[in-house]
């Protein structure tokens, strides 16, 4: 692992490049900047960045297409920048492999927080995949299919455990409703999100200290869910 993580910023707007580039550099990242999708793909191949910040509105290629092509052979985290209201674009990007998204116009802390979370996840994956995950007072033991809060075991139904395992394995990433439905109920269920709402509500009642104010299982409105391990969202 390099000391200074290398970031690739892909946005065709000069003003965004001029504002976001220095921001990231000032926080200790090495930043490469690409103005087009083609340029981005070349830089990804040449420099192997640790994380990519990708605007969905590019002049030459669709952002989702860039995302898909990167995912074909790399696991590098991708955070997409998208317009508010363009939920379909976000969902598409996440479905083809993006990890997270930030809605324009965003503030500096919001973007930085997402970058930190995504990088940390990569590093934790690099270091250990022990079959045991601790988040706050929650312990998920994949191998024995057990979940502990503190030292007390929480009894989960098989579906609840499946959902929790899926989210925890993809912690700090946004999983789209579609992706979750497909993983848990199969491809035929992707048009029936009501299963998911019910299951999430049940799971929250069991694992969250305060189910109406979740600290682990976050909703991303109209997009999907995210299991957060670390810092609470302080951006806004």
């Amino acid at each position: 692992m390099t000391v200074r993580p290398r970031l690739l910023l892909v946005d065709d707007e000069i003003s965004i490049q001029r504002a976001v580039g220095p921001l990231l550099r000032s926080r200790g990242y090495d930043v490469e900047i690409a103005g087009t999708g083609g340029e981005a793909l070349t830089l990804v191949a040449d420099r192997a960045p640790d994380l990519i910040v990708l605007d969905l509105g590019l002049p030459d290629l669709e952002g989702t297409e860039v995302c898909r092509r990167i995912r074909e052979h790399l696991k590098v985290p991708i955070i997409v920048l998208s317009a508010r209201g363009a939920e379909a674009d976000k969902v598409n990007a996440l479905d083809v492999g993006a990890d997270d998204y930030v809605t324009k116009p965003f503030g500096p802390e919001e973007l930085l927080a997402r970058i930190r979370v995504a990088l940390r996840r990569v590093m934790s994956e690099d270091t250990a995949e022990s079959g045991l995950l601790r988040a706050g007072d929650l312990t998920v033991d994949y191998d024995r299919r057990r979940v502990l809060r503190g030292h007390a075991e929480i009894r989960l139904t098989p579906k609840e455990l499946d959902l929790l395992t899926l989210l925890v394995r993809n912690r700090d990433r946004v999983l789209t409703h579609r992706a979750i439905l497909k993983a848990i109920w199969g491809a035929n269920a992707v048009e029936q999100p009501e299963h998911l709402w019910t299951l999430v509500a049940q799971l929250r009642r069991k694992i969250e200290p305060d189910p109406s104010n979740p600290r682990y299982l976050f909703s991303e409105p109209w997009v999907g869910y995210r299991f957060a391990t670390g810092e609470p969202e302080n951006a806004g």
Partner: protein
Amino acid sequence: MTLVYVWWLHVTNATTVALTFLLVVLVTAATSKLRDAVVTSVAAMLCFNFFFLPPVGTWTIADPQNWVALFVFVAVSLVASRLSHVARARTDEAIVRRDELARLFDLSRDVLAMTASPDAVSHLARAIARRFDLEYVALALPGSDGWSIAAAGGRAVLLDEHQLTDVFDGAARSLEFDARARTYAGHRSVDADGRTVRLVPLRVGTRPVGLLAASGRPIEPGTLDTLAGVVAIAIERMQFLEERKTAELTRQSEELKTALLASLGHDLRTPLTAIRVAAGSLKASWLTGGERAEQSDVILSEVERLTRLFHNVLEMARIDAGAIAKEPRWTHPAEVVAAARDQVAHTLREHRVVVTTEPDVPVQLDARLTASALAHVLENAAQYAPRGTSIEVTTDLTEAGLVIRVRDHGPGLPAVDLPHVFDRFYRGAASRTRASGSGMGLWIARGLLAAEQGRIWAENCSDGGARFTISVPVSVANASEATAS
């Protein structure tokens, strides 16, 4: 008469006489009315009996065979009279029908040529009056606030609205069959101003949509019915055209709103993000002097961009509202160009602008509108031509007025875009996701120029690059006035 003639010739053969008489009866039937033919038949029969059938000179008939002959003679002459009469009546009727058909055909042609316009209904009424030679024709259409009546013809008749309502309601309630006229029309004759006016419901299918009032030449009920049908279809068609026009306008305005929102969404989001990030960075203490200046610059240029966008939206709203008035005043072409450059100095800083203003004599025009329009054209050139290229502005005075040409050395206008460059929110087909440009500028330029009767057009130069030409009518000062002002 024939009798005497036959008497003289001493023809006594009953058969010859009967045949000759029959000929006379037929000729009479063919040329005059049925009544005359019957009278002739009866007279011929009596003469035949009295003078030729034995015993001659008496009304009695001795031989029963001659009774038969007499009876056959009467029957044949009556049938012949009747047939000939019917044939003639048919011919007359056919002539009338043909005449009315021709009139209907002419009217249908008039109807098809009609376009939707506010006075289309009175045009229609006039067309009916002309085609059918009527003294008075009126088309009465029920509206939310009483009847709207379009009248035509040489005579004015005041129709009673209550009567109209009665007839119309009757037509709406029931569909009656007129056995004599063989129609479902429900025609009514009313007296208005001492004249008999025929009221015919205009029906589309069976539903009445209005009334046709006609007075003057009598028209066959069947023809009147067909006429009413044609008129009803014409009115329906006009209403449909009117509705379609309204719907089309609504759709266009909806489309514009959507385009405006999409354009604003795109054009606001990027500057806001850049400003937010840069301002956040400025607040932090870790920036070096150079970085601080850089971030301030980002904020300033993005604020400039937002200001320009805001200005565009306002100008667009003013053009839409027709709130732009021309305020001509004396100025120099060079001043207009300078003012325009000044407005978009920020966008133009990456390009070299070469200005030629020959001859620079005072002209009278709305300097504000012209400069604003020119600024939009310059901005457009700066957005599409690569950085560092030159933009040439030349002014010229011609008979058409002040002509300003803006020539850039960019990629030129693709043929597909050329007809649309002045459309609102149109952004070149190839530059859909281009960073700059909202598709408003050139539309605004055209709108501003239209307010001062000016024109703008675009073309590609043979050696690359696009040329936009603005032409504004001006008054040119003569030498003495120029020095005075």
